Structure formats: structure tokens, C-alpha cells
């Protein structure tokens, strides 16, 4: 069934402005329904989105508004009930589980809200984890060490998660999300557990990743501070996009020195 975008008087919003670069992932009229206890819950009621390289998008909205569902769709963890999601032009609904898994590995880096670090692995090994099966241990180790140094944990390589503070765990989780050189970083409350200084470091790191490596960052956040740093803020309410505030600010069109 095709949802009527105007069914309750709101236009289906859009995450994407017209951008020169090709989008990494683009969704058109995306609907996502869940069945819980015999009832069908419509988490997304027809949204359009488009994420291009080096974008920094903050998704805000009350809980239950569909933010996590949107993040799951962007992360290829789930497929839309209707509408179309295209990853670099390919319809993701045609992917087999194996292809989906592979694309996820190639394209997406996740930073989960509760980190999900593996307690039996050291900080370094946790960062290496996504590439542990690649049989390139030396290269992986170098890259992981480099990433941990970059997030300021060069002196905590051999610490286990229970020996790290919340902020340190968060930074390990971010380093881990970058080990596969993703095109998009999906971060659920990336600064939720951090003090302002560390939060600033994370945001600086995001900027660096965007300018140096063209990584797009999509974050779900309640933190206005993060939202202010983003160049687009998307407000989701009740499965619809209510508002897209575009700043298109900082690095891309910044004044030349």
C-alpha cells in the first residue's frame, strides 16, 4: 500500500537539499511498519532523505518519533516496508542478507548509544573487532592504534572496557566505527555520556573526518550542542519529518583564509 503523504495535512519532509555530489544513500517515500502484539505500528510514515559525502545531519525529535527506525534503515540493519532506499543507486530491498551485511561493512560505521564494547577484548581489540576476520592482523593493528591515538586514547590501548570511563568507552566505540573506513557514520547520542570538553573533541573529530575523508555523519541526539554543530537538523515527529533546518555552514563554504 502506498501511504498518502498528505493524509494528515503534513507534507512529507525531506532530509536532502539539492546537493551537487551524488548521495551515498537516498530514501524516497519510506514507510516502515512493525508488528507488535498483533498490532501494526507505523514508525515511519513516508519520509524522504538523502545523505551525501561529508554531510553532518542531526536527527532530533521526541522518543517514539521514528529516529531509531530511520537510523536502522540508513544503517542497512532493516528494510523499508514500502518506498525505496537506494545505496549508491542500488535498491537495498534487492540485497540478500549476505550482500546487505557486506555493504554494511563497507559503507557504515555504527556508534551505539550504549557502546556495546566486548568486555573480553581490550580497547585496541575492540577497535580491531570489525576487521578481525579479514586476516590482515598487522594492517588492522596499525590502523586501530592510529584511530585510538586520534581519539586521544593512545595510552589506553590495552585497557579492558571495565577499566575505561564512559567517555573513554564512547571514544573507543567511535574509533571502532571508523576501522572499516565507512562512508557514513551513524551515531546514536554520540556525546550523551561525555562532558563538554570531550564532546567538543568528538565534534572536532567529526569535522576532521568530514573534511579529510569525506565521511558523512548522521547522528540522533537530544543534545542541542550537537544539533548546533550539524549543518542540517531534521526534526522527526510521529514518523514524519516536520522541519529541516539547513545551516550549510562551516567547513565547505567557509571563508577562505
Amino acid at each position: 500500500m502506498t501511504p498518502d503523504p498528505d493524509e494528515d495535512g503534513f507534507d512529507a519532509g525531506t532530509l536532502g537539499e539539492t546537493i551537487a555530489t551524488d548521495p551515498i544513500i537516498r530514501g524516497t517515500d519510506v514507510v516502515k511498519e512493525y508488528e507488535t502484539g498483533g498490532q501494526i505500528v507505523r514508525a515511519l510514515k513516508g519520509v524522504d532523505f538523502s545523505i551525501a559525502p561529508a554531510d553532518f545531519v542531526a536527527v532530533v525529535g521526541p522518543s517514539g518519533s521514528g529516529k531509531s527506525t530511520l537510523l536502522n534503515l540508513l544503517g542497512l540493519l532493516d528494510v523499508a516496508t514500502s518506498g525505496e532506499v537506494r545505496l549508491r543507486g542500488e535498491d537495498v530491498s534487492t540485497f540478500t542478507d549476505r550482500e546487505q551485511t557486506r555493504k554494511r561493512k563497507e559503507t557504515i560505521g555504527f556508534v551505539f548509544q550504549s557502546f556495546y564494547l566486548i568486555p573480553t577484548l581490550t580497547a585496541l581489540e575492540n577497535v580491531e573487532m570489525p576487521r578481525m576476520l579479514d586476516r590482515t592482523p598487522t594492517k588492522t593493528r596499525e590502523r586501530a592504534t592510529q584511530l585510538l591515538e586520534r581519539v586521544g586514547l593512545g595510552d589506553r590501548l590495552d585497557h579492558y572496557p571495565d577499566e575505561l570511563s564512559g567517555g573513554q568507552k564512547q571514544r573507543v566505540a567511535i574509533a571502532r566505527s571508523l576501522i572499516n573506513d565507512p562512508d557514513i557514520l551513524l551515531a546514536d547520542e554520540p556525546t550523551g555520556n561525555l562532558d563538554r570538553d570531550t564532546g567538543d573533541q568528538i565534534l572536532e573529530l567529526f569535522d576532521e573526518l568530514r573534511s579529510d575523508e569525506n565521511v558523512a555523519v548522521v547522528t540522533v541526539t537530544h543534545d542541542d550542542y550537537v544539533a548546533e554543530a550539524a549543518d542540517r537538523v531534521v526534526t522527526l515527529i510521529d514518523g514524519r519529518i516536520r522541519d529541516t533546518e539547513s545551516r550549510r555552514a562551516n567547513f565547505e563554504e567557509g571563508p577562505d583564509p
Partner: protein
Amino acid sequence: MNPLRWLVGRFPTLALARRNLSRATLRSALAVAAVVIGVVAIGAIGTGGEAFKQDQLEAYEGFGGTATVEPDVQFEDGNLTNTELSDGDIGRLRQATPSATVLPVHEPVGATVQTQAGTLLFMARVKGLENPGEFYEARNGTISDNWRRTIVIGSRVAEQNDLQPGDRLRVNVTDEFDRSFEIAAVLEPQGFSAPLGADQTVFVPASEFESDGYEQAIVRVDTTTGSIDEATQAIEREFNAREQVVRVEQVQEQREQFEAFFGTVNQFLIGVGAISLLVAAVTIANTMLMAAIERESEIGVLRAYGYPKRAVVSLLVAESTILGAVGAAIGAPLALGIGMAINQLLLGDPLAFTAAGLRYVGIGIAFGIVTALIAGLYPAWKAANKRPVEALD
């Protein structure tokens, strides 16, 4: 890069699996213990059973080319008839098998054996034989070729009553004699299945008996010159042409029967041992299911980061297989140790393993590992098929 790092890099799944197991040490240890019990059960029952069989089969050595002849006892009108072989029967046996040696055996009913102090030896049987030295080796003392007026006793009779050569026993055989004999020799242990039940027997020289009735005769053929099969057939023709008068059994046949019987018993016991491995499989499946549920979100993270289902299955199956392998690694030496103890006890040599016995240890190891692997499959499959979205909620 140190060797351990290298190994971790080469076999990341195994390294991850091992660390995951170390998370719930007690639970892993219990699962391992279950496998150990199973492997030990199969291995020890197998090697022990083989040692026991060897021990019993030794009793048949020296009985090649030998058959026993017994009257086919009938029960008619409340009376037992045809209970013994007469002197005439023995003569006919000798005629039918001219190349064989025929040794009549007295096995009197109503014989009692007492020590000097008057203790009755309930378990001891009395048999009259011309020369036990033909079949048996003496453990202590000597069996003279011209054996008269002394007795030779089986190993269990000696052990149970603490008897040595030189001691005396009083033997009473109804209607025959009642006198005291000096023990000339104690025989080597023969095992419970020995053709004459030698371990529990007090051998009295046949010359002590006056009656001409024999309960059994031993027919012996020198296998280099004659055939026990022919002798058996000749006896059958002579005695059993019209009706069954005697039962002829080759010791070799008895040995085969024993082996077959024992094989069945041993297989049954190993089956019982295998049940303990089945229990181990249930334990491991349970351990792995719990691990999979506990780590659901972690597995979801692996999947989110691009681990294919297959990798998750490998990881969990590796965990359960490690449990099985560790259990087998602990269980196998234990089973061998128990086997060595049984070998020492029964065969006098701790290393007297037979190929068949060792095979059971091998089977135990293989079963232990394979059951663990199979037990891990379902939990692993279940964990791998959980959608990461659900697992991460």
C-alpha cells in the same frame, strides 16, 4: 609480533571463542566436566573391558585342540539320568579318537573342603584329574609329573583362604574319601571363564577316586598331527548317532562364544557410557543457548559491523567445540590412567593396551568433540539468525 598474537591474527574466531568461554568460567568448567565424564566413561569402559577380555582369554591358551565331553543329563520322572560317563564310555571315547588323549575328570557332587582349623570353603569345587600340569602353570610350588597324594589349588581358593604350598586342606568326597592333603602347588589365575573353572577348584589326583563314573572328559589332540574337528565328529558319530547322549564342545568354540558374549556386554556398557556424553551434549547446548541469549546484543553488534551469519555460527560452534576438545583432552589421559590401573590389576602390565582398547579412547575423544560441536549448532544458528535490529534494542 609475538607467536600468540600471530595465532590470534590467524585464527581470530578461535581466539574470540576462547575469551568468550573465559567469561563464564564456572559454566564452561561444568560443561567441560560433563564431557570429561563421558569421555572417561567410554574410554575406561572400553580399555578396561578389553583388558578384562584379554585376561579371560589367557585362560584358553594351552587349550587349543581341546574339547570337553559331558553326558547330556536328562530329567525324567523326577530323576536325573545319564549323569556320568562310565569307564566303558571313556574306552569308547579313546577308541573313537585314537590319536587323541582322553582325560577323564571327576567332578563329584557332595564334596566339601575344610581348612585344618575346620573352616568350610564354600566356594571351592573338587575335581579329580590325572595331571593338571598338562593345562596349567603353577604360580607357587610345583606340579610333579607323577602326581599322587597331594592337591593343587586354584588361585582364588588360595587367595581367599590365604593358603600356600605346604599348607593342608581336608577334602571329603561322599562315598569316596575323607582325608587331609598337603597343597603341592597354587595355579596361575585363569579367569572366571576358564574351561575347568580352575581358579575356584581344588584338584585331587584321579587316583584317589575309586568310582568309575566321570562327570566330564577332556579330549585333546596334538594340533600339529591331528584335528580336533575330526575328533569331535568321530565322538558325535560314536555316541550321538541315534540320540543325544553326550555334549561335545570345543574349547575354541567356547572361547568364541565368550568373545561374542563379551563383545555384546562391552558394547552395552559403552552404550551406557555414550549416554553420559548425550547428557554432556544437553549441558553444552544449554550452556551455549544461555551464552547466546546473554550476548544477544553483542552478537547484534558483530552483525551490524559486517560479520556474516556464517561467522557468528562459526564463533559459537567454535566455543562449544572448544568445550568438547578441552573435555576430551582432560578425559583421555584420565581414561588411559584408569585403563593402566585395570591393566596392572588384571594383566600385570600397565601398558598392556590392545589396539581395540585404545580405539575406545579414540572413540571417546571423537565422540566428545563431535557431540559438543553438534550441541553448539542449534544455539549458534539461532543466534546468527536473530535480526541485528532486534538484538540491539
